[in-house]
């Protein structure tokens, strides 16, 4: 396995830090997840749950994000808990957390404290606003990072409230950006001989995404602003947006003259291309998009999403059905590439989970292992590996530390 020589400790909850360490786990690293007593990672309480009945071991999001990891319960609020934690950090390459900066500092588990005894440690903190700057003490979640990052401003109807990027997608960006940054730090460690602190802010990430994309708008007289199913001013030549068809929506991007002509020809109206009003794709985008939308949709209404998709493939212009997420579970493309894997969860049954979005030539992935039960590996790690005696374990349990 590509990363089988790495050991990762994750003190994380919900999405960003757990997604980050799951990527390492999928590639063979050993990932130990430190969870607080009682309820553990907040994602255990998030769901979805079979039959909508909450259960710490049955949360869909938790199961997806934590497959293959090991779970240790530790009360870090207690000094003995922190002692054990510091032993766990021995021989660890990477520490990943998305805890609030001040709470980590109060526990004296911040980078300055840990790096003294562990100079080679790579310490990665992922938070909504980062460890430095005027908002470092601010609390936030996915929706707040979307808001500050300039994404929400561009999502929704023009006359209504802005929308978040749904399903914690911004927090996932925190996870993948952190994982990539950690690999840079591993490369650096070979050069400089020591680890370092990595400060990842989800708001920064979203701000750079919008900052990059908006350059195609702001420098061309277009607003970076929400405009329903269209990009504002189509973000360039028309068409660029979601369009209604017989049974839902399709996304069409036919910005080049060639693609626009192909689209009209495929829909049986090549004559449009001769009408000056439908030749200037910039004017269509900026001056009368509603008119063109209505004309285009009157043609699209005769076809289903799938018929249009087949048509686009035959004629060679970019169009996709707006699918529902669950359809991917049966998608022939994803199936052929073995993107999904079934995993048997004792309490639930079989679940189909996505794997990594890339294939590496020299590596076949190991079968997925289930996510750990809360504290499932306490015994194995604390007794067998750290050498804590059975008697001490009993005491630690009574004190509420493990």
């Amino acid at each position, binding site marked *: 396995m590509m990363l089988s020589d790495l050991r990762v400790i994750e003190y994380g909850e919900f999405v960003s830090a757990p997604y980050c360490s799951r990527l390492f786990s999928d590639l063979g690293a050993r990932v130990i997840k430190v969870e607080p007593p009682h309820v553990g990672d907040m994602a255990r309480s998030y769901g979805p749950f079979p039959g909508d009945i909450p259960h710490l071991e049955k949360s*869909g999001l938790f199961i*997806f994000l934590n497959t293959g990891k090991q779970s240790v319960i530790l009360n870090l609020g207690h000094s003995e808990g922190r002692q054990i934690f510091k032993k766990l950090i021995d021989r660890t390459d990477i520490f990943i957390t998305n805890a609030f900066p001040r709470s980590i500092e109060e526990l004296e588990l911040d980078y300055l404290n840990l790096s003294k005894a562990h100079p080679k440690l790579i310490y990665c903190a992922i938070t909504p606003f980062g460890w430095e700057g005027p908002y470092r003490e601010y609390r936030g979640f996915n929706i707040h990072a979307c808001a500050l990052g300039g994404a929400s401003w561009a999502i929704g109807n023009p006359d209504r409230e802005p929308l978040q990027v749904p399903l914690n997608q911004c927090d996932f960006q925190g996870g993948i950006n952190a994982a990539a940054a950690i690999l840079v730090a591993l490369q650096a460690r070979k050069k400089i001989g020591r680890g370092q602190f990595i400060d990842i802010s989800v708001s920064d990430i979203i701000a750079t995404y919008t900052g*990059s994309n908006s350059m195609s708008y702001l420098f061309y007289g277009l607003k970076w602003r929400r405009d329903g199913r269209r990009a504002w001013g189509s973000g360039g030549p028309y068409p660029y947006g979601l369009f209604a068809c017989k049974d839902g929506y399709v*996304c069409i991007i036919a910005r080049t003259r060639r693609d626009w002509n192909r689209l009209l020809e495929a829909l049986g109206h090549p004559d449009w291309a001769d009408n000056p009003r439908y030749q200037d794709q910039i004017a269509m985008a900026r001056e009368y998009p509603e008119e063109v939308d209505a004309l285009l949709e009157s043609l699209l209404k005769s076809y289903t999403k799938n018929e249009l998709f087949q048509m686009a493939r035959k004629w060679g212009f970019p169009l996709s059905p*707006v699918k*529902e997420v669950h359809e991917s579970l049966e998608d022939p493309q994803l199936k052929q590439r073995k993107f999904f894997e079934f995993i048997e969860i004792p309490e639930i049954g079989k679940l189909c989970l996505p794997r990594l979005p890339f294939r590496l030539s020299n590596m076949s992935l190991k079968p997925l292992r289930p996510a750990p039960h809360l504290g499932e590996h306490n015994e194995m790690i604390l007794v067998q590996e750290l050498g804590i005696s059975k008697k001490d374990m009993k005491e630690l349990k009574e004190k509420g530390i493990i």
Partner: protein
Amino acid sequence: METKPLPLEGLRVIDLGWVWSGPMVAYIFADFGAEVIKLEHSERLDNSRLRGSPIINGKKVQGESIELGPYYHNVNRNKLSIRLNLKHPKGRELFKELVKVSDVIIENFTPDALKKLGLGYESLRKVKPDLVMLSLSTAGQEGPISDMRGYAPVISSYSGLESLVGYEGELPLGMMTFGLSDPNAANHGFFAAMVALYYRERTGEGVYIDMSQLEASCAILAEAMLEYQMNGRIMGPQGNQHRIQSPHGIYPCNGEDRWVAISIDSDENWRRLVEIMGNPDWAKDPTLQELNGRLTKRKIIDRGLGEWTSQLDREEIVRTLQAQGIAAMTVSTVEEQYTDIHLQHRGVRQEVIHPLLGRELLTSVPWNLSETPGAVRKSAPLLGEHDEYVYCSILGLSSSDIEKLKGEKIIY
């Protein structure tokens, strides 16, 4: 000031990328010190050069428009630029010479495009056995729709992401302006390439990475897949709701088009919020004291909270709520990135001077590494600016060789 080392210095990367995702992977390498050579040809330019001349201070900038695009400049900073015609046999020979002395190739062509030119991974590893090559295609190198043409929103429509964007209970709107698919794919791609380099250092082996942008979009939508598998429920437009937080939304503030995002993640924070609002009658409902009640009565809460926020300035709301430990943030425009004290402090924008456009504020790679930070150091190259350096200094061609290749439109 102490100069900190660049962690990827010493690596040479060939960037065959187009538009956003491929070039973004390459600029991350460049920001951290790799020597990145972007390869184009005048008859086959990166089409993000073709967006026309920008308008700055109300005036269309004069000059060669392919050199003037701010978008292109952003995603190609810190790189070197060469021209080479890969459709010509001599161009391909020269390309292989360059591959011999490079470490990584990044490409986001349609599958088979490079293979048809005889420049697939199998051919290239013959000249460079420990090559790392990242192919970042729409749906992967094989499979029934691997030939699909797709820009980012086409991919995120196919994955289902766009169907989740819209007001609750209404029809989907998608997020056509924002565009998550490209940077999401780029970061997954950069991660995979770095994993491959890590492995290469341990084993001496090269790695080919077949990455699917569609899969990168699907990989982070597991929640909706599991809702369907567990409960047969299809998730539609999500609005601003949250599974285990209420209130959770974006609310109007005093002023035109002013908004604030607020969420309550505990019963205790709900009580604090009610107090800050001055204990309005609607909030006294005892069933609202617990999350389940607040989730059920989301609409009532959103209306009441919105009435309160609409009388106040957004900055004041954020300060007041955050002082009590309640998550709140202004909904910012993208222009506010230049002025927001926090984003400024964190260096989200970095300045370079472009020879034709002057001062540009580009987007950083937002990873603050304490010992080996990346940085925007050089503006995007002009087309072919580094022909001489790459062909003469790296590959050892003479000036007359180059003139000849230019004459044959191989370097063009």
